[in-house]
């Protein structure tokens, strides 16, 4: 592929430069809109990011010269959009997010360099990854280090650090499934009842996660990834249908039995009430939009206020005139509401198109890969990325019940940033191998 490989990386460099210019423009517009509160330092962020991604590019030049040239610039664009918005919402958070991105890029570089010869060694440790995923998922349940935020136990706290192990567990689960399904796919494809065992085990596991962490979103994400990979491995749609049925049944039981899940669904179906209803937060009576569905409703108001063209970067309304925050969790769960208000329909749709392009490129990598493990790995990573985006943005848009998970590459949060860079590393490794000259 000689000249072709070189031009792959040069293309990557070109698009990264475009992203660099865009990042500069983004920070500049935040600076112009908010001169009174923001300093010129903001522009150094843009330079810093360009430098960081240039370093990442140099690593791909060395470690994965044949990898897809669009994935890294798209990831760079998404992180830049995220950091710009996080900076606009609170400059100190952006600094911390910047540090996490440095760690993310470092791990990305480490993964590429370590696994550049053959990442397929991971397959040998598939059960280790599987057990690792389960351990990570149950960490937040452990007394002492587990922490509950916003009604869901998803966090691990150690001193000043707070980490969401679920993000990493997702990747471990995908690696395990890629290995396991590659090995068992012929047997599973025959569809004998006794082979449905593992399916039921994993379904049970997901339901337990759901019950243990009080979180419908993560349960849906893990189970969705599992079903997608099972379908790709076995080509049996019936498995998917049975799986969806089982999940729906489990979800229904959770809705009936778990107050937190019940509340989420009620909010989704009826965020506004015209009469006062019981408010579990205060114990009194209140309109639901002033109580349980406060967050969702404020998020919708934010999106609605963006309109077609948006308020403009730095010009959206997120606080009252006396400085109270109007939208809770604005830089994590609700960052899409913030972006939709400032960038408007044009910007929000463009952002979602970048997500779609990333998914399309990721799936292309899976198509090009030659062996089953690689195909399943790339499929799992890409589908997980797409489904996670759908669950959080769909929740914010009231398409599905809202559950708090992060928007890949954009939301504020260390675990999320690091995990997403590992997803990117995985896709580049698979792509590099698929495109390698033989």
């Amino acid at each position, binding site marked *: 592929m000689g000249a072709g490989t070189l031009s792959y990386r040069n293309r990557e460099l070109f698009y990264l430069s475009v992203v660099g210019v865009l990042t500069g423009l983004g920070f500049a517009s935040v600076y112009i809109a908010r001169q009174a509160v923001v300093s010129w330092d903001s522009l150094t962020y843009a330079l810093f990011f360009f430098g960081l991604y240039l370093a990442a590019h140099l690593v791909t030049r060395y470690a994965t010269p044949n990898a897809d040239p669009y994935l890294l610039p798209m990831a760079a664009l998404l992180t830049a959009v995220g950091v710009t918005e996080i900076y606009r919402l609170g400059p100190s958070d952006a600094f911390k997010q910047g540090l996490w991105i440095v760690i993310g890029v470092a791990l990305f570089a480490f993964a590429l360099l370590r696994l550049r010869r053959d990442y397929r060694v991971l397959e040998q440790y598939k059960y280790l990854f599987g057990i690792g995923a389960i351990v990570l998922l149950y960490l937040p349940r452990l007394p002492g280090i587990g922490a509950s935020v916003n009604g869901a136990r998803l966090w691990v706290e150690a001193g000043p650090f707070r980490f969401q192990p679920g993000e990493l567990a997702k990747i471990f689960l995908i690696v395990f499934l890629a290995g396991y399904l590659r090995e068992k796919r012929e047997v599973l494809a025959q569809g004998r009842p006794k082979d449905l065992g593992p399916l039921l085990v994993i379904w049970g596991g997901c339901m337990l996660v759901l019950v243990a962490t009080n979180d419908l979103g993560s349960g849906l994400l893990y189970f969705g990834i599992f079903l997608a990979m099972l379908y*790709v491995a076995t080509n049996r749609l019936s498995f998917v249908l049975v799986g969806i049925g089982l999940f729906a049944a489990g979800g229904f039981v959770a809705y009936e039995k778990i107050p937190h899940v019940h509340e989420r669904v009620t909010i989704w179906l009826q965020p506004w009430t015209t009469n006062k209803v019981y408010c579990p937060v205060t114990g009194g009576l209140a309109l639901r939009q002033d109580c349980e569905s406060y967050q969702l409703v404020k998020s919708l108001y934010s999106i609605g206020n963006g309109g077609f063209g948006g308020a403009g970067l730095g010009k959206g309304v997120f606080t009252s005139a006396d400085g109270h925050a109007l939208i809770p969790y604005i830089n994590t769960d609700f960052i899409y509401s913030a972006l939709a208000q400032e960038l408007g329909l044009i910007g929000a749709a463009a952002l979602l198109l970048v997500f779609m392009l990333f998914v399309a490129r990721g799936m292309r990598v899976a198509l090009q890969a030659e062996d089953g493990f690689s195909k399943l790995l790339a499929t799992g990573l890409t589908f997980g990325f797409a489904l996670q985006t759908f669950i959080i943005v769909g929740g914010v848009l009231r398409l599905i019940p809202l559950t708090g998970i992060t928007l890949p590459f954009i939301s504020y949060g260390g675990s999320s940033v690091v995990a997403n860079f590992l997803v990117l590393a995985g896709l580049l490794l698979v792509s590099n191998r698929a495109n390698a000259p033989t």
Partner: protein
Amino acid sequence: MNKQISRLSIVALLLLAALIVATTYWQSWASAGLAARQDNAIQRVAEFQIKRGLIYASDGHTVLAANKKVTRAGQTYYFRRYPTNGLASQVVGYSTQGRSRSGIERQLNGYLTASNANLGTIIDKITDKLRGTTVTGNNLTLTIRPNAQKLAESALAGSCGAAVALNPKTGAVYVMASSPGFNPNKIESASGYASILHSPSACPGSSSALLNRATQGLYAPGSTFKTVTAAAALDAGIYTPESRFYDPGYCTEYGQKVYNSGNPDQNGPEMYGNVNLIEAYQHSINAVFCNIGQKIGARRILDKAKDFGFYSTPPLELPADERAPSGLYDFKKHTLIDDASQVDPGRLAFGQERMLVTPLQMALVAAGVANNGKVMAPYLLKVVRSPGGSIVTRTKPTVWRKAMKPSTAAALSQMMQAVVTGGTGTAAQIPGIKVAGKTGTAETGIPHVYTAWFIFFAPADNPQVAGAVVLEHQLNGFGGSVAAPIARELMQAILPQASKQ
């Protein structure tokens, strides 16, 4: 596996495409609905970043609502300031962060924030946004005449009540006063708001200063309602102004005698004997109207009331929930009754029964008589101007109701003039000007405490002003003694040819 991967890709892309569709929904179709929600704090704050349009009185230079520029955390906000400290407070209303909006500030928020669908406004707004300058709203000029409004408010001060004066030929509202009033600059702060809510007032019960009594206050109309009854009787052709009646001093209702002496509005003897319709109206004789009501029936009277606009919410540039329809009310359910079979036609005819009216509606009754039977749609907004001064829209007078035949209106005009020249309303006389009017004095259930009314228009040969004045809880105060003098002052303030005394 590639076939499955391709299918899965389509599923994944469809999921993400659904997000674009949902975003489009919230940002276009649903966006206006979201913005209109009262709990939309984001919209409210966003609108404080707009330099809100000014509100002027009809003279074009008395500023009723202005802005105060405040910079907080790098953001510029424009908060409302009301330089007159409450002239026409319930009409102008308020625009605050904590307590939302009311009055014109709420109803015409679109013009004031430049979010109205006018091509020029839209272009201005987009240009402002692109240039990064502050979006500036359109300025409103109201029909309210500041001097007459001030006069009405000081005349009502100390009582609870309302006064409305408008141009009967156009519907332009010159005066809309409601007492007690409030200082809108105090609304935002908790202590100021409490002081408005709990200020002592002359009227027990519904004492709120925030209530626009002119459009929301529901009062028993008393004898002013005889105007509607007379219009029904004349329009139906059953009676003429010269029709003769015998007044024995009472009227028999369901076998019981209802005496004129129970009517505080009537002056002169308790028994007039032989009178014609003009005299019966002039002296507000209940017994005669009671008999007219029994003869023509409740249905005709209610239908005539509807012709004047009763039973529907009058059009005006105020929020719908700040305007009430007039009509027969079920007191318990607070709903309108429109079933003639449940109504006593005799009592209805002289303004009792469960008839409740707003001062605006009674002003429109007088205006309909003044304008040859046609009730013009009342309006408060004279003109909307862009920040640059060009006219965005100007209100054009429209006919709201055809209340009666012109001949009936002419006859009623004569009858109303008789009230002022030699009847119950002589206190409204203005030298050199023919004044038409009708008194009303409704019982409140408390002995010697009345709701005092006067409806009017002038000059009777070329009417330029019509209106209504009502005063609540008047101890031994009658329509002719307390309301008519205020009406006279209002007419003098509005009519250029009136020489003040």
